């Protein structure tokens, strides 16, 4: 499954969320990560985030795709981060 994670959390917790999410997904730009993820890891990620965020004031959004075949990704301006397995 492919997932795009977008989060808007209190500044105090931004780093915590980022650190957790980086274990599973590729950082794309501020507060946005994306990547291929397995069902089990998706659950793990959600649980880890749940522990970090304050459900009263923070929000995390997950967009999931079974496949990326019918999606298209365009970018404008600077490429800040992303995927690619060849470094």
């Amino acid at each position, binding site marked *: 499954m492919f997932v795009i994670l977008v989060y808007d959390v209190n500044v105090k917790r931004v780093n915590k969320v980022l*650190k957790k999410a980086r274990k*599973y*997904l590729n950082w794309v730009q501020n507060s946005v990560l994306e*990547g291929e*993820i397995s069902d089990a890891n998706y659950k793990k990620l959600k649980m880890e985030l749940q522990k970090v965020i304050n459900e009263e004031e923070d929000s995390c959004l997950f967009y999931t795709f079974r496949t990326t075949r019918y999606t298209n990704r365009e970018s404008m301006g600077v490429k800040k981060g992303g995927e690619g*397995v060849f*470094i």
Partner: protein
Amino acid sequence: MKKVIYIFSDGELKRQDNTLKFHCEETNRFLPVEDISDIFVFGEVSFNKKLLELLSQKEILLHYFNYHGYYMGTFYPREHLNSGYMILKQAEFYQDKLKRLELAKAIITGALKNIRQVLKYYDNRGKELKSFLERIEEYEAQIDSCREITELMAVEGNARECYYQAFDIIIDNKDFVFEQRSRRPPKNHLNSLLSFGNSIIYTMVLSEIYKTHLDPRIGFLHSTNFRSFTLNLDIAEIFKPILVDRAIFTLLGKKMITKKDFEKNMEGIVLKDGAKRLFAEEIDGKLKTTIKHRELGREVSYRRLIRMELYKLEKHLMGEREYKPFVARW
């Protein structure tokens, strides 16, 4: 499926925030540790023990290659699938001459069938390969009558030689003529491509073996020795034609790699960095390609097929189902 990371740049691989970070002059990239199965290191990369700890914990294999692109070794994390039973079975089949021969025959049959499949494709595309196809078929017929592993190896060697002759017709480029197989070091351009590609496949199979109960030290076709892993060499025989050789034909056919991408040093010819990267990308793309599996009825990638090959071997060793090698259909 988890990803394979290929590092060609020079830099530092670090553990940070319980994930991996590659730090070099151009980029500073975090790599999602949960989505990585192996790391291939070609560049000059430094790392420390706490990184190895994380790799062990996450069961990630780290393969390293030297400056010339030769396979040097693998950081093989603690075995996580321990099975005394499977090792005993493997040893039993290795020591029983008939059982070992039977398995070795199956592996070579698979390899030759896949070789024929590759040749057939180019034959249909108007290359004159009929005579080669016939000769490979003859060698295939000889497999059955072999009584010794050495005999079998000889048949395989001859078949491969005949197959490599066909490369000249398929590639049809005077910069890349085959002449003869030379290794350590490869003496011409085509040979150095073959060596590099094969070493990637050998290590990829090793990675897949790590995820099964099998022990990479006990191979069946290649005899077990004191030094190296051999089971990965066995299984790689089956996949070399369809993964490495096809990648070579693509790269040379599209002129993505030319004579300029090589340099001569120390008696041999080696690939330059850019070309290594292109080649690795091509093979990685192949490994990710999916095909419809007839028995399972769903799409599986070539990488998964390698693993399934190992599962079939396990089944054979346990006496559940006879091992039949994978044969490509196109």
